[in-house]
């Protein structure tokens, strides 16, 4: 049986799904959402999402969440009942209410506090909308607790002690009571829990079998209950059957007068319904815990009594799988890939013919392993849609804070990326969207002056391209003001006044730590989080960020990511007798030492002249404490690796051995952190090879080469 803590986890997982459904439903509605039945279903599904969050939140005592979702639901109900139309203004408020609900769920889960000012603002807006909608709702709310209070006060009132306190009760069920599944015996048993009960069955009205009428079976009970309970508490037990039976409740002489003790409608009420606001039965605590929030009208689609609404299936069937299990599967497939490499080597060593059964069998295994790997990766792959949807709200917040107008156009939200990548994309994308609004887009006046529409457009798109995922964030703003970037970079000592920079090199300064193009820190983009952080995060995912800008037309950031973090396209390189793996993405160029010009710097340093630049040479073997090739043995090859900002170093390597996909094994989990190394892999012959971390190597080299002469265009 699940513990409460586990259920809490379940609840928050469910909330994620519900918030997704809420968000996409509201967006579809805002986009016009078909019409007629389709639109109705959208409204219902949105309503259900908020309703379910409210229900679960109540169970865990998350009162803030209950209160807000209730208010939200009340406003949604105006849309559902047709009292309000899906106007852009209403949908805008609902979208922002959805954002707030998201925040409140997160605050409830993580223990933080939601942004109070924004909460107050949206609550005020919703209140206004709710007020116009449901006067009856409010009356319900006012009425019920009052009735309870009265009952409570009477219960503690002095009895006169002149006789037993209690009630004489008549219960005469009509046929409907049985047809609804109510069992008089169970009801009588429940009454007996309140005190000693005497039951007298009245059989006088029962007709002979031939004349028996199911609608009026005629069985009745006279009950005397001795109890200290109030009339309200007693009546509460009958609330399921109150107009399905003739019920009277008379206080015994010793009973303090309760509020309207005999106030239950007699069975004669028949089909006529009491007005909804009439105090028919004071609700008792057994079934009606006082609601902390006003109860709105019935939250069900209007259907004829007894008939159900059949709603089309919303989503394909899914199974929730613990991520650990998928990870284990992926690890096992990694082992399979390694074993296949081992087998392949054994077969090669055995000198078998390439047309032998063993070789063709191995080929088949290799194909299967590839297919399994792809299928399993697909399990962990998820569409970018949730992240993209999140960005819509980030945009709304950013435009609200800056007073600029902008819309987000998304493309390729269905593009699937490994789940671990998706999780870590949210922060960088958030920053880039804010950046695009804050820095990318011009203000309204500047846009008008250049004949652009007042509303800016930010395009967020994703696509698969040659084994990588490309994500682009483009704005139609003014483009990068390179003169200003240059000036600021000089002020901050990031470039020398003499340096000659290409436009691309100038743009790349935006990614440098310590560069912020805004003189004053803006409330939107904030301080301390620059594009350098974005770049680091993307690089940590094995990706790259590039920037392209056209003056007057806008700026485009492109993020290229690997499809998965589990395998890597690597170059197998020999350093000091060890085989290591260099991520292919970082390799800019390879160079034979024969044609290279080297310059000595300091006692042991070397710089390689390449395309008009001097590039520091890093002897990795020496850095890892491996034997360097003896004197006279220069490096077999220089491998030039490059960072996003254009920083390059040349690695002096023994030889390039191979180029292949490798399975990434965490070194930190199994051993510890090693500078310059990001992970490890297992080679076909069973040996372990380290996977190098180009960024770490570049950082180390940058420091080492700080004193090196700078050539024109150098940005060390």
């Amino acid at each position, binding site marked *: 049986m699940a513990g409460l803590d586990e*259920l809490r986890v379940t609840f928050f997982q469910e909330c994620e799904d519900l918030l997704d459904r809420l968000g996409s439903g509201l967006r579809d509605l805002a986009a016009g959402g078909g019409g007629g039945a389709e639109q109705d279903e959208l409204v219902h599904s949105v*309503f259900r999402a908020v309703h379910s969050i409210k229900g679960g939140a109540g*169970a865990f005592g998350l009162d803030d969440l209950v209160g807000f979702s209730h208010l939200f639901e009340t406003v949604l109900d105006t849309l559902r009942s047709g009292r309000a139309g899906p106007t852009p203004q209403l949908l805008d408020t609902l979208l922002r209410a959805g954002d707030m609900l998201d925040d409140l769920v997160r605050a409830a889960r993580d223990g933080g506090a939601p942004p109070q000012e924004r909460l107050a603002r949206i609550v005020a807006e919703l209140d206004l909308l709710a007020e116009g909608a449901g006067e009856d709702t409010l009356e319900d709310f006012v009425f019920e607790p009052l009735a309870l209070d009265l009952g409570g006060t009477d219960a503690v009132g002095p009895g006169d002690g002149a006789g037993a306190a209690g009630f004489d009760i008549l219960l005469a069920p009509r046929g409907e009571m049985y*047809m609804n599944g109510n069992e008089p015996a169970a009801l009588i048993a429940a009454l007996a829990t309140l005190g000693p009960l005497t039951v007298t069955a009245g059989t006088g009205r029962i007709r002979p079998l031939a004349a028996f009428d199911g609608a009026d079976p005629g069985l009745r009970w006279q009950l005397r209950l001795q109890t200290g309970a109030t009339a309200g508490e007693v009546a509460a037990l009958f609330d399921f059957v109150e107009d399905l039976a003739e019920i009277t409740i008379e206080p015994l002489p010793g009973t303090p007068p309760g509020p309207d003790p005999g106030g239950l409608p007699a069975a004669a009420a028949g089909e006529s319904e009491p007005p*909804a606001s009439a105090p028919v039965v004071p609700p008792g605590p057994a*079934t009606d815990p006082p609601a902390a929030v006003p109860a709105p009208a019935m939250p069900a*689609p209007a259907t004829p009594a007894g008939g*159900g609404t059949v709603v089309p299936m919303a989503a394909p069937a899914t199974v929730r799988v613990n991520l650990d299990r998928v990870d284990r599967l992926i690890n096992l497939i990694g082992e399979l890939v390694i074993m296949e490499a081992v087998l392949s080597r054994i077969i090669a060593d055995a000198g078998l013919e390439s047309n032998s059964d063993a070789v063709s069998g191995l080929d088949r295994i290799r194909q299967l392993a590839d297919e399994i790997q792809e299928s399993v990766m697909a399990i962990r792959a998820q569409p970018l849609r949730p992240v993209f949807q999140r960005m819509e709200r980030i945009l709304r917040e950013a435009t609200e804070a800056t007073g600029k107008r902008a819309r987000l156009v998304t493309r390729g939200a269905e593009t699937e990326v490994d789940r671990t990548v998706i999780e870590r994309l949210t922060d960088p994308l958030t920053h880039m969207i804010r950046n695009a609004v804050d820095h990318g887009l011009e203000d309204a006046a500047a846009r008008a002056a250049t004949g652009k529409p007042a509303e800016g457009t930010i395009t967020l798109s994703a696509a698969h391209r040659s084994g990588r995922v490309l994500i682009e964030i483009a704005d139609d703003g003014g483009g990068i003001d390179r003169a200003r970037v240059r000036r600021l970079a000089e002020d901050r000592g990031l470039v020398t006044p003499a340096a000659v920079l290409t436009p691309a090199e100038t743009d790349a300064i935006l990614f440098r730590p310590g560069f912020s193009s805004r003189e004053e820190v803006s409330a939107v983009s904030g301080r301390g989080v620059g594009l350098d952080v974005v770049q680091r995060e993307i690089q940590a995912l094995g990706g790259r960020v590039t920037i392209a800008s056209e003056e007057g037309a806008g700026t485009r950031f492109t993020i290229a990511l690997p499809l998965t973090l589990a395998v890597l396209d690597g170059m197998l390189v020999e350093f000091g007798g060890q085989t290591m793996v260099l991520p292919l993405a970082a390799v800019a160029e390879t160079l034979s030492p024969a044609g290279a010009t080297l310059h000595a710097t300091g006692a042991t340093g070397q710089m390689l002249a390449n395309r008009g630049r001097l590039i520091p040479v890093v002897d990795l073997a020496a850095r890892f404490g491996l034997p360097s090739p003896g004197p006279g043995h220069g490096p077999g090859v220089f491998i030039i690796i490059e960072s996003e900002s254009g920083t390059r170093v040349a690695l002096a390597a023994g030889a390039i051995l191979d180029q292949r996909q490798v399975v990434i094994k965490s070194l930190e989990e199994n051993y510890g952190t090693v500078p310059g190394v990001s992970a490890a892999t297992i080679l076909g012959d069973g040996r372990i090879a380290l996977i190098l971390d180009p960024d770490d190597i570049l950082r180390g080299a940058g420091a080492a080469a700080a004193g090196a002469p700078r050539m024109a265009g150098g940005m060390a």
Partner: protein
Amino acid sequence: MSRRILAIDDSPTMRGLIARTLGEHDFVVSLAEDGADGLERLAEVDPHLVITDINMPRLDGFGVIAGVRGDPAYASTPVLVLTTESSAELKQRARRSGATGWIVKPFDDGALIAVIRRVLGG
């Protein structure tokens, strides 16, 4: 004899809460995730009591009640609807649709068990 209860709710949280509470009180609980699923499982579970949410995809709670009442074997089986409302309108509607009673969410363990005992006895 433990009595069998079929609980129908599209919220896994709510299903979990019901299963937990009822399990602690010696009921045998079967769960279904929407109205259609619930009706499909009706004969298999053969419940003494059905508890159903109202707002659900595919088939809502009123559909469940209609289905249960329409099956001669379960025409008089108690059906409790789970609701966050306690309005007079809801009560009317639930009664007219054939519900035996209702349980107002959020419920505490005691309230849930008390309501169940009221319709099942014992």
